[in-house]
């Protein structure tokens, strides 16, 4: 059948009629919602969806408002990055095994991509995976891994063939974070928190059944993950925005107002509104099935806006801007770019133009893939990875 607003709403109401959240265990309710295809309606039936248009998810969410949710903040990487990749490249078994506990939040996921020596140039990554019979033995170091300490699974890109050019020798795995040889160390950031981790992989044995996609096809699989990440970071409609937070400060502290700040805030208010409209138009395009290239652009705009706004807020606060709420070295479960105080927002926003693809890389992508400008002369395209200059 083809789904529309009415039929999805109908199905959601029917589901609620049979499952009273008040009367059942939270997890049972979420599992039932998944099985009813109301988790992500654009996923196939049997995998938490109905094969319906993506934009009808809003209808299901509206109908199920107020019922227990899967705490998306805790499992953002699973929802935003692992799930679409598993759906696109996973086997039937893999999808059935992983998607349900991923969505219900029973199993947290993390991302094992970046390495100290491979940031923007991810494809040079050095973590090796060597095949031994039905297993792969993985050795290497990953970094910038959020939730690694709470994660059950990790999406991992490793080098399975150093003898071919860097993009061709990679393979994509699901890493068992409970396997022997997986060591997680917190990595403290300039905010004082350790939102991320370093992950050391030493002789970690992964069954071949945890491979996602073909051997040597890891780069293509990873692209799917990264595209989804950027849309997730830049594209989502925000309830509470950085502009809203800063405007609140402006309204509540008349004594801090100057024409200098006012003119700059008005400009940024316009920029925020333009970004909101651009994101709305992007979502319309996605819903209409022809995704525009605006995705990577949104993350660019988002980072610039967060950085300028949070910078103005600290400046505006004067003496209060000289203070910082808390330098304690802790490990937050969830991340809120606009949470805590102005100083935190300012420092945390600096990461927005680095994490998930630096703004420099995003500009390259736009220039080459959207505008069709020629690539830089490349020295590393056709050289075997092991022979690259280091």
């Amino acid at each position, binding site marked *: 059948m083809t789904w529309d607003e009415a039929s999805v709403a109908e199905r959601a109401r029917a589901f609620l009629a049979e499952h009273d959240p008040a009367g059942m265990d939270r997890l049972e309710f979420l599992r039932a919602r998944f099985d009813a295809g109301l988790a992500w309606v654009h996923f196939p039936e049997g995998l938490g969806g109905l094969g319906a248009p993506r934009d009808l998810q809003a209808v299901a969410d509206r109908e199920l408002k107020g019922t227990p949710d899967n705490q998306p903040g805790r499992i953002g990487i699973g929802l935003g990055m692992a799930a679409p990749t598993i759906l696109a490249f996973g086997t039937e078994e893999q999808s059935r095994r992983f998607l349900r506990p991923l969505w219900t939040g029973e199993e947290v996921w993390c991302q094992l991509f970046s390495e100290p020596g491979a940031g923007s140039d991810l494809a040079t990554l050095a973590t090796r995976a060597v095949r031994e019979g039905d297993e792969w033995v993985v050795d290497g170091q990953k970094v910038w891994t959020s939730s690694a300490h709470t994660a059950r699974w990790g999406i991992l890109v490793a080098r399975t063939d150093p003898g071919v050019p860097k993009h061709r020798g990679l393979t994509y795995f699901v890493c068992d974070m409970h396997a022997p040889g997986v060591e997680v160390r917190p990595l403290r950031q300039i905010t004082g928190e350790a939102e991320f981790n370093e992950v050391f992989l030493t002789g970690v044995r992964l069954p071949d059944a945890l491979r996602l996609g073909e051997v040597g096809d890891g780069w293509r699989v990873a692209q799917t993950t990264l595209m989804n990440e950027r849309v997730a970071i830049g594209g989502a409609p925000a309830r509470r925005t950085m502009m809203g937070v800063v405007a609140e400060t402006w309204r509540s502290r008349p004594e801090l*107002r100057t024409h200098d700040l006012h003119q700059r805030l008005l400009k940024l208010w316009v920029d925020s509104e333009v970004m909101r409209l651009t994101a709305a138009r992007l979502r319309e395009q996605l819903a209409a099935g022809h995704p525009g290239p605006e995705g990577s*652009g949104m993350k*660019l705009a988002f980072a610039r806006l967060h950085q300028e706004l949070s910078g103005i807020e600290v400046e505006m606060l004067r003496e209060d801007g000289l203070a910082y709420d808390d330098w304690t070295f802790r490990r937050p479960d969830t991340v809120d770019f606009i949470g805590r105080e102005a100083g935190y927002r300012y420092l945390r926003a600096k990461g927005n133009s680095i994490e998930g693809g630096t703004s420099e890389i995003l500009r390259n992508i*736009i220039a080459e893939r*959207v505008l069709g*400008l020629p690539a830089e002369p490349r020295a590393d395209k056709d050289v075997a990875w092991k022979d690259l200059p280091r």
Partner: protein
Amino acid sequence: MTLLYTEVEEELRAAVRELLADKCSPSAVLDRADSAAAGGTPYDAELWKALARDIGVAGLLIPEELGGSASREGGASAREAAVVLEELGRAVAPVPFLSSAVLATQALLTAAGQGAGGDLAEELLGRLAAGEATATLAVSFAASPYAPAAPCHENGVTLGEDGTVTGTVTGVIGAEAADVLLVPVRLARKTEPCVGLCAVEASAAVRVTPVPSLDLTRPIATVSFASAPARVVARAEGLEVPWVWEALMRGAGLLASEQLGVAEWCLTTTVAYVKERRQFARPVGSFQAVKHRLADLWLEVVGARAAARNAAALLAEAPAAGPLGDDAAVAVAVAQAHCAAVAVHAAEECVQLHGGIGMTWEHPAHLYLKRAKADQIALGTPGDHRDALAGPADLPTPV
């Protein structure tokens, strides 16, 4: 409401673009600009006739019952006018669409909506829709929709007892092409300040003096009325001239789409040039600094499209006449504040990244730079529109 383009809009765009590709090449526009600078008419009457009559762009905002194509049920609206302006901007086409089919038309629609003098307004709208006549609103193109004073006071055109108007208006666009001039006037016969909107047919009593203008493809002129026979289209008590403010606000909202078109041409043309132009044995477009600047510009243009579409969509939903709601007013201000700056930035990058050739009269880049810069001033500066947002955004001005 959608921010995308509908199929009907894309068809209209295709028709306009095809006509412009045929009749409005950069060299043709440049030749006309040259002759205009030498005293010739700046507008292409033949092109305008083809647009207005054959494609019917003159009537996009005029209701079907008056001979136009606007209607609530699947007819045309501000959305279609916006698409036409995108194409006209992309070609810096020398036609009086904005002055006649948007500004003058909006003034008449507001007047018609008011009853008094409505018949005359409807008669004029009919002539405009049919492409029988071209009009302009005799108000400075630099007037801000937020300016407190009524323009008919600034320039002081008065309607005499004998039914003729006298006075001068500066900074008017589209006057050379206008058969009918709509001018806000002070009614002399009243002691109470009372203003009106008059329709004046072009005649010997109406002198249009072209002014050498920054924008070669839409120059301004000074219009002087010397006891010119006039008909009153609308009256109002006090100093309010709703026909003017409504026209300027709606015009500003649609101007954003012209600015989008200008910016798109500049981006596309520059990208094509840097792919071809080689220096240091490489295409200039392979240098990362150039690539990053064009990527940033692209992002600005993407934002401009979203903002311009939003303004057009909300204007399309607003009543044809009468004051705009807050949403539409905010959408207009946001679109102007953003698109005006993007068009100028795109044109400036276009000149810079073309290098020396971009500084030559022969290359069309300067036509876009001059249009973009003039549009930045037109119908409220970006600063005016930002200031207007302080209220709706609840960002109070420091005291």
